[in-house]
């Protein structure tokens, strides 16, 4: 197990090198230089000054040398400063992280809390009215674009019913509220983002769960479970569900990078100061250091997520656990 883990962790290194190398070059191939920002805001800037700026950022050297320098800094956890405002990239990411993380963890919880029972029920009642209605609804929500659902929900709950605040994550008077008041205010702001961001996933995952459950229920060991005299509840929830849940472990692992990735469209609609928006802005401003930090973050999380998925799959499925 330890050697396996070590092997997998070591395999991350060349992958990360490849990913960062390609991203580094691709970003530099895109039109527009990072120093253009200062340039365009200041029409009086001279050519010498541009050259000096480039030298300051180390952009006058050959690309490979730049990459080597960037890599060396990255290894010391130094991602440099953001070109747009000169603040440390790590700081800029950290202050946005908590918001994105909170929303995504909540919606992931929501996802499993609803998708699993809905999928199981839909499988058990596959040929009844309930089954057909859930099938229709899940396809509807799965197909509906998130931004459109978000706008509809905002129109209904925020504008017409006025139950919830329309955007942002805190109210204007947030600073003056008590601790409980702050929590309540935050929760009210998070309701719509969390529900809307999880609803498509709930629809998709519950379909997945439904087919997994139908598959498990048709397996021979289900006849065995019945022939042993187990109640239908035990047959379904002990013998079938355990098997149907196995593939979900992979999905959890694969959703780990998404937890921090954030969503550009989503955060823009709800004006949430999260990671997704940060990197969208970074890309628009050619803020190389910030973009590269994002690439590293998502790449590492994706690879770790895969690793965690594989390990936990082996943990829950004995057939994989004991294979050498």
């Amino acid at each position, binding site marked *: 197990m330890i050697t396996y883990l070590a092997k997998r962790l070591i395999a991350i290194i060349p992958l990360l090198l490849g990913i960062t190398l390609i991203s580094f070059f691709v970003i530099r191939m895109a039109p527009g230089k990072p120093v253009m920002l200062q340039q365009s805001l200041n029409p009086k800037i001279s050519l010498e000054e541009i050259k000096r700026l480039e030298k300051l950022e180390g952009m006058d050297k050959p690309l490979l040398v730049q990459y080597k320098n960037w890599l060396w800094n990255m290894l010391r956890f130094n991602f440099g400063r953001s070109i747009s405002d000169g603040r440390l990239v790590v700081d800029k990411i950290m202050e946005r992280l908590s918001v994105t993380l909170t929303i995504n963890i909540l919606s992931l919880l929501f996802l499993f809390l609803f998708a699993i029972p809905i999928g199981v029920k839909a499988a058990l009642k596959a040929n009844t009215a309930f089954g057909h209605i859930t099938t229709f609804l899940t396809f509807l929500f799965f197909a509906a674009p998130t931004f459109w659902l978000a706008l509809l929900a905002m129109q209904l709950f925020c504008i017409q019913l006025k139950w919830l605040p329309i955007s942002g994550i805190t109210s204007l008077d947030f600073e003056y509220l008590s601790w409980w008041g702050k929590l309540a205010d935050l929760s009210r702001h998070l309701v719509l983002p969390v529900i809307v961001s999880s609803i498509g996933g709930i629809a998709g995952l519950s379909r997945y769960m439904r087919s997994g459950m139908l598959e498990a229920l048709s*397996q*021979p*060991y289900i*006849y*065995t*479970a*019945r*022939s*042993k*005299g*187990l*109640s*239908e509840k035990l047959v379904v929830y002990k*013998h079938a569900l*355990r*098997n149907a849940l*196995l593939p979900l472990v992979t999905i959890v692992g694969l959703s780990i990078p998404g937890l921090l990735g954030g969503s550009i469209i989503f955060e823009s609609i709800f004006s949430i100061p999260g990671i997704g928006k940060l990197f969208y802005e970074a890309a628009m401003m050619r803020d190389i250091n910030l973009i590269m930090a994002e690439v590293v973050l998502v790449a590492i999380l994706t690879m770790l997520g895969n690793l965690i998925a594989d390990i936990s799959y082996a943990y*829950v*499925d*004995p*057939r994989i656990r*004991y294979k050498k």
Partner: protein
Amino acid sequence: MQNLLSINNLRVGFSLGGKSIEAVKGVNLKIGHNEAMVLAGESGSGKSITSFAITKILPANARIIAGEVYFGGEDLLKLDEKALADVRGSSIAYIFQEPSSFLNPVYTIGSQISEVIMLHQRKSREEAGLAALELLQQVKINDTQRVSESYPHQLSGGMNQRAFIAMSLACKPKLLIADEPTTSLDVTIEAEILQLLMQLKRQLGFSLLFITHNLSIAKRIADRVSIMYQGKIVEEGSCAEIFSSPKHFHTRELIQAYEKIGKL
């Protein structure tokens, strides 16, 4: 002598793609105490479905159209789900064709045996675990501890079938229904399993309904044989009667086929 089980005019239908197909068309079958009844017939003749219908563990698209299944003075088909569940696994137990897929892949052998003991005999987990080890010993497994802690995929087919037999005999059933229990095993293992089954039958004194398409097995273990053909039992008699003077043309066909390849 009164019969342990008597099936009267059992009819089972399937709905397949909107059409209804009758797979079992009025089966009558009687099994006495301590008797080994072999239900033989070609694939698709309705043998397995008949056996599944006895305790209503049929697939979702199957439906019992008519019939009675008397067991211990009660018609099992008229019992409610809860009363029927009390019969399953305790007085009527099953073993199936492919032990490796009929055992749940994510639970250990020991826990799958314990489960049925805890359910019907109301024993604690520890007691059931010990009982499971004893049962494994009863089916001639030597390293019971290791087998008990193993998952089905870690054991051979023969070992899994032994463990399955241990599981089905856990509550000392009066009737053991064996649905082609050796079909997926190779010949030497098949012989061992058959020997074990017949020895346990003498030792514990249960009745056996053995379903097979293999007439040489029928000849080896049966007290009585019923031949099933296209959803009906076409001939029934003692083992000697069936093999020495078969009456129905299908029985004769089957026997001839086996004689041709020298397996009887």
